[in-house]
């Protein structure tokens, strides 16, 4: 019976479900009957790819089948654990809905008519289409969008070697604001030494739920063992709120008011680290003057947190310094002023002197890796289509500004973009304002997607080039910088199940046909061989194959930058409380508070967030994870629900300026009455992601908005109407 047959059975009931599950578990029934002598049980270390934490794991493989993924205790970044998503990696490998061969559409885009083709045909077609666009519009007429992975650089290099300046990456939907804010202040984005902190303030970040990192584990340990106090600000009562010492359902978009008031108190009451500020910081006088206007009483009005609490928290925070931190968070794609808010945070962290100290912020340490020298190409000469230099001069150039880019491409300005190559990304699901994304997609002469599953973007593509999953791949060695930097290894634990390729080979296949082979003239083995040359042990490759991870005992190190002659990577060489670059670019050099847009009468602000068992939009179709949430719901507070006549589990309609969806209501007190919340990754178009077709897509509701300094998407600026249907 083929896999489609299994799928059919699965819809038929328990027996089918078990067969599907047994197969998904990695135990094809055929093999169970035949095996008499058990095959040897192999333990193969590798690195997880189910989220960005890159934990180390040990795959248990028997008879060429992955039976279980166990934690690898040797990685200080994953601390011998493997989360729900990590354990479900088996389902990514054995997913019956995986793309098993290259495919090309035969009907209209989105019609779902596909033909299986050979790699030659798919790559010929891809190259031919790219060349056609280059011929007519120049290489800048091609867009290369990707999300991070150990192999992503090959994809990006291909776009550049082809001559296109138009790369766009996930940070513009995620970390752009926090990265830019900390980079402008400190010259780098530090890690937070949560393990040793005594007082932690978090705005959102929801580290106990949104994604499991060492900070998660340290936060749990510190708060439950009463070593640290956690003050948590979030319009939702998340798992982090449940464990925090203090939780305030802060009025959305007012975190900067809270921070400025803290600065007002800490500076006004001389509670800051004078020595640190005078030695390492610039712009303090202007900062001190600037924050005089932001009193706790004023902030109480804005944040709806009493001034009594703000005052006390500011004092306790500074008392605990330097082992105090205002946690930066990662996803900073909330409000139009997110960049400003993160700048406020950075400044607050700076003046209490927690920089490069135990329990504070620590600049990331590195482990040096070697580099294979490959032939360089000419940098693209055309300007970017999102006109970064003009619109977002300080934004990270290689990441682009997705929402601005989309506006421009739809308008055909400043020039047409007619081909779109997508790698490991699902823009149709992931970007706000889905209608616009589809509009941009439909305007393309060519859409090529490299992915492992039939994502919503793949569903609308012209050609799909299937990548092998992480359990089937040899990847470049990756160095994860941090307080305890590690080098992780990813090696295949089974041979590719289907006719899929690792990204490098896909890139090489396209490059050959574009006459760009000379820039990709190496194998993965050669690449890795150069990388490991810099590692200190005698046989580094053998070491990595056996252990899966290398970490040096010399870390953590504190205070390496606290020398009088240390030059921070800022314009002035100091920690810039007042940012010269911001000033020169015509932005506020110190963060100025702008109140958030008022929620219109009878509407709600839509806020987003994550759960521990899903990674964005890419894992909602895996049964083991989907079982915890078979469809997403709209969280709504009981009071407004009641006045709208909405009961728990009712079908409701949610409408915004971008579109409307039907979804199930979840009436819960765990959210502010003026907000609603929904989970990401449902309401999918792609019928191959059957389990994720349920619920609604936030991409259809979210409106286009961005931070004007970083260009980061502002995803909490959408107001919705809710009604029972």
């Amino acid at each position: 019976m083929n896999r489609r047959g299994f799928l059919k059975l699965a819809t038929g009931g328990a027996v089918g479900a078990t067969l599907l599950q047994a197969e998904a578990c990695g135990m094809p029934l055929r093999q169970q009957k035949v095996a008499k002598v058990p095959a040897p049980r192999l333990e193969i270390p590798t690195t997880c790819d189910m989220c960005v934490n890159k934990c180390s794991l040990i795959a248990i493989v028997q008879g060429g089948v992955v039976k279980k993924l166990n934690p690898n205790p040797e990685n200080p970044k994953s601390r011998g654990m493997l989360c729900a998503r990590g354990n479900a990696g088996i389902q990514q490998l054995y997913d019956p809905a995986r793309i098993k061969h290259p495919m090309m559409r035969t009907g209209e885009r989105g019609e779902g008519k596909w033909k299986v083709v050979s790699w030659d045909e798919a790559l010929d077609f891809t190259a031919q289409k790219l060349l056609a666009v280059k011929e007519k519009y120049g290489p800048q007429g091609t867009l290369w969008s990707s999300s991070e992975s150990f192999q992503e650089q090959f994809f990006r290099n291909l776009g550049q070697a082809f001559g296109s300046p138009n790369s766009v990456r996930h940070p513009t939907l995620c970390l752009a604001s926090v990265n830019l804010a900390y980079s402008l202040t400190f010259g780098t984005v530090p890690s937070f030494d949560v393990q040793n902190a005594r007082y932690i303030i978090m705005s959102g970040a929801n580290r106990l739920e949104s994604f499991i990192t060492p900070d998660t584990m340290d936060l749990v340990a510190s708060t439950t063992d009463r070593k640290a106090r956690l003050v948590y600000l979030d319009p939702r009562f998340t798992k982090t709120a449940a464990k925090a010492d203090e939780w305030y359902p802060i009025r959305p978009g007012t975190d900067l008011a809270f921070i400025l008031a803290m600065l007002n108190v800490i500076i006004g009451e001389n509670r800051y680290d004078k020595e640190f500020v005078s030695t390492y910081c610039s712009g303090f006088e202007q900062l001190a003057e600037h924050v005089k206007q932001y009193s706790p009483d004023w902030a109480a009005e804005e944040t709806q947190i009493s001034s009594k609490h703000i005052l006390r928290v500011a004092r306790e925070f500074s008392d605990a310094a330097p082992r105090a931190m205002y946690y930066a968070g990662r996803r900073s794609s909330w409000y139009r002023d997110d960049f400003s808010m993160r700048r406020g945070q950075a400044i607050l962290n700076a003046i209490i002197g927690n920089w490069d100290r135990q329990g504070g912020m620590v600049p990331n340490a590195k482990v040096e890796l070697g580099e294979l020298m490959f032939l360089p190409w000419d940098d693209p000469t055309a300007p970017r289509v999102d006109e970064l230099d003009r619109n977002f001069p300080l934004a990270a150039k290689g990441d682009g500004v997705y929402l601005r880019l989309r506006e421009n491409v739809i308008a055909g300005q400043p020039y047409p973009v007619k081909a779109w190559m997508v790698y490991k990304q699902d823009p149709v699901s992931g970007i706000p304002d889905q209608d616009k994304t589809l509009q941009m997609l439909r305007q393309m002469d060519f859409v090529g997607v490299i992915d492992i599953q039939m994502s919503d973007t793949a569903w609308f593509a012209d050609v799909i080039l299937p990548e092998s999953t992480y359990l089937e791949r040899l990847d470049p060695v990756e160095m994860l910088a941090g307080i305890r930097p590690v080098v992780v290894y990813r090696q295949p634990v089974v041979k590719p199940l289907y006719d899929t390729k690792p990204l490098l080979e896909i890139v090489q296949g396209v490059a050959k046909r574009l006459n760009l082979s000379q820039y990709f003239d190496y194998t993965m083995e050669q690449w890795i061989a150069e990388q490991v040359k810099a590692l200190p042990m005698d046989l580094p490759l053998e070491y990595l194959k056996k252990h899966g991870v290398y970490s040096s005992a010399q870390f953590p190190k504190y205070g390496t930058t606290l020398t009088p002659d240390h030059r921070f990577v800022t314009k002035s060489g100091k920690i810039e409380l007042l940012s010269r670059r911001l000033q020169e670019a015509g932005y506020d050099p110190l963060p100025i508070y702008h109140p958030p847009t008022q929620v219109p009468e009878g509407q709600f602000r839509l806020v987003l967030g994550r759960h521990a068992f899903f990674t964005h939009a890419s894992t909602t179709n895996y049964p083991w994870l989907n079982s915890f949430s078979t469809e997403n719901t709209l969280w709504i507070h009981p009071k407004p629900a009641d006045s709208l006549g909405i009961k728990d589990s009712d079908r409701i309609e949610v409408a915004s300026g971008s579109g409307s969806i039907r979804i199930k209501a979840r009436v819960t007190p765990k959210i502010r009455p003026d907000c609603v919340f929904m989970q990401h990754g449902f309401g999918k178009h792609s019928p191959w992601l059957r389990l994720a077709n349920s619920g609604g897509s936030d991409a259809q509701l979210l409106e286009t908005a961005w931070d004007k300094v970083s260009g980061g998407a502002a995803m909490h600026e959408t107001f919705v109407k809710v009604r029972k249907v």
Partner: protein
Amino acid sequence: MKGFSRMRKDIGVLTVGSLVLVGLLALVPLTASPAGQKGNETKGKFYFKQNCKSCHVKDAQGGEITPLSKTQAQWQAYFAKGKHMKGTETLTKYLTPEQLNDALTFLYNHAVDSPQPETCGK
């Protein structure tokens, strides 16, 4: 930018112009200022790693040098002078003027006071 398609038509003029420019560049040592930013950064990184890194690593003869070793102004000044090994030789011993311009572009764009916001992944 709208001018771009017009530029393609004017390629003839540009080619002559650039030949003249290259000719000029070959005759005089590289001057500081705008030239440094307009080189090819990808190639510059390659030339720097291939030619300079063999010596300029930790515990090596020349001491460790990375783009962060100097400010933008310092890199420009250094390449303008074009001298190496305490003035005993010129940089053109290692790279052509065009390659040096590329290397300068790379170093300038990643200098210790350059705007290089960090990002996720490479």
